């Protein structure tokens, strides 16, 4: 009995030590890393005979990753003069990223599930139609479906820029509030809340909004 207790204590100490020792340096932890993109390493010029062919150094063995849901997202920026050329030159003054994004699943909840806008599969390509022509037709049909919400209707895709001038922000907010009152879809409500918050931020200093795609 006398021996058991010290042994038990010792065992406990070892266990506790092992747990705390989790902080002990793992050899992997000591490794230094360098970004893959650079002139040194597997993507460098010398290591690749035909760069655009994708035949990189044999060391690169990427693993395809299964993805689900709608790809893409829109980042919300507040801009006093929201326009594509201005955005391309960089943000100035009070212009800034609002740390707000509309993700694919949120877009889906709001526009496809709640507002019942057509998804791309419901607007098939016409014979010989170019992708630009189709995009225009799809966007028109999308907006036609929600005539009461013309400003929300501009967000008909996740790979386009959407611009709201300062004088349109109030109307966008109003449209969001009206949709909010018609749905209990939590994801859509969260999305609308993000948009309303963005409108409020922009309105404080008379700015517009620019939604930029990934």
């Amino acid at each position, binding site marked *: 009995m006398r021996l058991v207790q010290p042994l038990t204590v010792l065992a406990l100490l070892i266990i506790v030590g092992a747990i705390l020792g989790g902080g002990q340096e793992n050899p992997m*932890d*000591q490794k*230094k*890393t*360098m*970004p*893959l*993109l*650079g002139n*040194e*390493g*597997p*993507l460098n010029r010398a290591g*690749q005979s035909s*760069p*655009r*062919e*994708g*035949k990189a150094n044999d*060391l690169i063995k*990427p*693993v*395809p*990753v*299964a*993805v*689900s849901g*709608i*790809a*893409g997202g829109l*980042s919300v920026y507040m801009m006093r003069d*929201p326009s*594509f*050329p201005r955005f*391309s030159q*960089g*943000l100035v003054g009070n212009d800034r*990223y609002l*740390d707000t*994004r509309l*993700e*694919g699943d949120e877009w889906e909840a709001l526009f*496809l599930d709640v507002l019942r806008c057509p*998804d*791309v*599969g419901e*607007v*098939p390509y016409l014979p010989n139609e170019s*992708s*630009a022509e189709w*995009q225009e037709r799809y966007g028109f049909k999308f907006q036609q479906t929600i005539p009461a919400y013309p400003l929300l209707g501009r967000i008909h*895709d996740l*790979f*386009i*820029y*959407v*611009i709201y*001038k300062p004088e349109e922000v109030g109307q966008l907010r109003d449209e969001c509030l009206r949709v909010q009152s018609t749905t209990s879809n939590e994801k859509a409500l969260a999305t609308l809340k993000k948009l309303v918050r963005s409108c409020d931020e922009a309105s404080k200093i008379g700015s517009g909004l620019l939604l930029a*795609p*990934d």
Partner: protein
Amino acid sequence: MWLVPRKRLGTFVVDLTSTRQCRIPQNPLKGVTGGASGQKDPCAGLKASDLNYGKERFRGYDKDGNAISENGIDHITRRHILLDDPSKGFLTQNKLPILAQGSSKYVFQDNVTTLSNAQNLVVRLNAVVFEAAKDDYSWSRGNIVMTVTFPAIPKSSDEFFAGIGYDLKQGFGTPSNSATLILGRDCREVITAYPGRP
């Protein structure tokens, strides 16, 4: 050197979960305009050199109502190579973001000093992504989505090449080892590409 905080090493471990799925036949009915079941695989027989970075694409309307047009390489450069303030250039291992960025950003080795070099490296990276995923991709609303994860590549006995860039959804604390390439339904038109997952 770009030291990786110990606690964050986990992010460099390749996520092997669910990577064995064959995803071409997945084609969810929602959002499919190309590659629907029974149709020819648009990526079949294509090579990375077939990727078209120069095709102008409709990207919405500007404030005056004029259509915005942008090709793939310009879009990738504007949104994912250059910082939100383009005059600040791009991220390198010793030039990391101070202000929150509005999109995922690639990170380059310090030896990358020109924009054209950075663009070329992203094109090469995308070529590797394409070749790895052209038989194993997903559809999203009529577009082709290719995402891959790069295992860390040994540089020397105590150094690795790892990290593609920062995934906005994960934050700017730990670089992501994944890269995403999004193509039009023809499997050639480059819509966008960025570090991280869709």
